């Protein structure tokens, strides 16, 4: 409902009315979302942490915290450092491990009233194989995002994401082992993002999500040492958005598979930039920490944007800036 050109506060009324107007559904290859708003892995726990603040059923989807075959305690602290319009993190893939996840978390995850994407990581091809095997259609997980781009662990994650041949190989392996849609999450810490995107497309990825965090560092000048115990960490937040938008733009021109755009989205205007650059869906990460209602506000804003410009479906705006 529009009152004096502004979105009225009453969200229920607003969405009920607007659903008639704007088609929100998005097709990401084999994966259909009720709307284009997802939350990023590592920023939304296992899906219920933010439930008191943001209704899960309004989201297009959520991406779970990255999982590895074995439990990981992650990196020492400090793990966070703030930077202007952003933050560095070096959590180091802390997670309960596959077995504990399946036993203790999956039963609740299965009940989440939205599309659930599992994020998997590994230190070897065997790790990715184990993870891919665990998630199949009917398991309560709707898609697998393959993290080949974690900057916070040695000898894993990002290695696969910075070498095109390795990236293609790991995606092909995961694709062979699961019947779920496979999303390849790209690292921006490469010389040529397009080359990486083509490699994962070649490997059989159904969808690309991009970008993961940018490797960065912050130094405590009084103590004269890095703030993060891990010394380096991944930069996220609005500071990285122009880099992310540029990369989505480049990749959208080079591949035929859909893109989930992410990197510093706080507002609907940010999300619109990604969609116009070629992302079919967008994902909100660090923005949730600042404003837990960001996913809803972004969705409302995108709908209103479509209405204002006469688009019948959100998918109509994808790639229009090209």
């Amino acid at each position: 409902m529009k009152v004096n050109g502004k979105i009225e506060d009453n969200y229920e009324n607003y969405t009920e009315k607007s659903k008639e107007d704007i088609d929100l559904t998005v097709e990401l290859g084999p994966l259909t979302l009720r709307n284009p708003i997802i939350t990023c892995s590592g920023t939304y726990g296992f899906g219920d942490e933010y439930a008191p603040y943001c209704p899960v059923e309004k989201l297009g989807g959520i991406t779970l915290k990255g999982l590895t075959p074995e439990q990981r305690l992650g990196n020492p602290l400090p793990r966070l450092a703030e930077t202007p319009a952003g933050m560095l993190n070096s959590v180091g893939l802390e997670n309960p491990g596959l077995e504990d996840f399946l036993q203790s978390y999956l039963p609740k995850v299965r009940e989440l009233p939205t599309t659930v994407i599992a994020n998997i990581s590994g230190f070897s091809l065997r790790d990715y194989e184990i993870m891919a095997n665990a998630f199949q259609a009917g398991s309560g997980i709707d898609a697998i995002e393959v993290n080949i781009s974690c900057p916070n662990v040695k000898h894993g994650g990002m290695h696969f994401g910075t070498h095109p041949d390795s990236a293609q190989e790991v995606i092909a392996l995961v694709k062979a082992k699961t019947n779920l849609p496979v999303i390849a999450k790209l690292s921006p810490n490469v010389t040529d993002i397009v080359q990486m995107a083509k490699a994962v497309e070649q490997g059989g990825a159904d969808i690309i999500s991009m970008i993961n965090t940018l490797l960065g560092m912050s130094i405590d000048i009084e103590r004269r040492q890095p703030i993060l115990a891990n010394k380096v960490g991944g930069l996220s937040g609005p500071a990285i958005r122009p880099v992310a938008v540029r990369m989505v733009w480049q990749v959208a021109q080079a591949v035929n598979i859909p893109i989930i755009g992410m990197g510093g989205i706080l507002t609907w205007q940010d999300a619109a930039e990604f969609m116009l650059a070629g992302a079919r869906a967008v994902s909100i990460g660090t923005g949730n920490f600042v404003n837990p209602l960001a996913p809803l506000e972004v969705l409302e804003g995108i709908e209103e944007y479509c209405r204002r410009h006469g688009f019948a479906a959100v998918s109509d705006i994808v790639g229009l800036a090209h």
Partner: protein
Amino acid sequence: MLGKAHIIAHDFVGDPLYKIRRLILRTEVAREAQPGQFVHVQVAKGMDPLLRRPISIADIQREAQEITLLYRIKGKGTEILSEAKVGEELSLMGPLGHGFTLPARGELILVAGGIGVFPLLPLAKAAQEKNLDVSLYWGGENKGFFTSSGLDLWQEARIPVFLSSMDGSIGEKGNVLDLLKKQVGSRLNHGEGATQAAQSEVLSVAVCGPQVMTQVVSDYFLQKGAAVEVSLEERMGCAVGACLGCVCTLKDKVSGRIYRGKVCKDGPVFKGEEVLWDYEG
């Protein structure tokens, strides 16, 4: 709760030299807040700093729907927060975290280091309402610090307070552990060893302060057989247990399993006996 809180009062506590601010907010958080919990406050209107600031709840007025936050201006975030004016609104998440356990009976000793005293007052008041024997042992730099950090709030509440100052300008000279050993050590000695279980039924201890102080005080009372709870502090991102930025390391007493606890969600209050203070890795 995520919403706006109205600023009712915002001023220095005592001498501005100590940079301790009192912020009274009218908010729904007052209805649910428990001792030891905190709120996550948006301080900047822009993006530097980007993240909210976790601040412990220093007083709860349920009828008036008000909470008091006490904080020290220490960095960019608190500097900006200190500029917020009466009548303005702040975006607030809370109440958050797992607070202190109010003992069923017996004696409750509160131990604070510096501004770690702030989350302890609501616990003291709750203990008082329950007619528990409650007292505060508080270490700080000097007399000016105490009078600028809400000492009068404790005196108004008629809670016995024992102080130690590094320069001896008020209370005992030295640190708070020295004070505790002197003031309560003698009557606790019989609690060591075989009578530990009995001791923990009658003596509970809540500790909040710098990590080293919290650790030594926790270990001291655990040796004496008391039930010890510690409130931990860490840099936080989400404050709801989603980002894993603020974890601590815990050891399950029964199984011996080592695992991470989320300071924001599982804590900030943990059992002293379960915290692995120096875990590396």
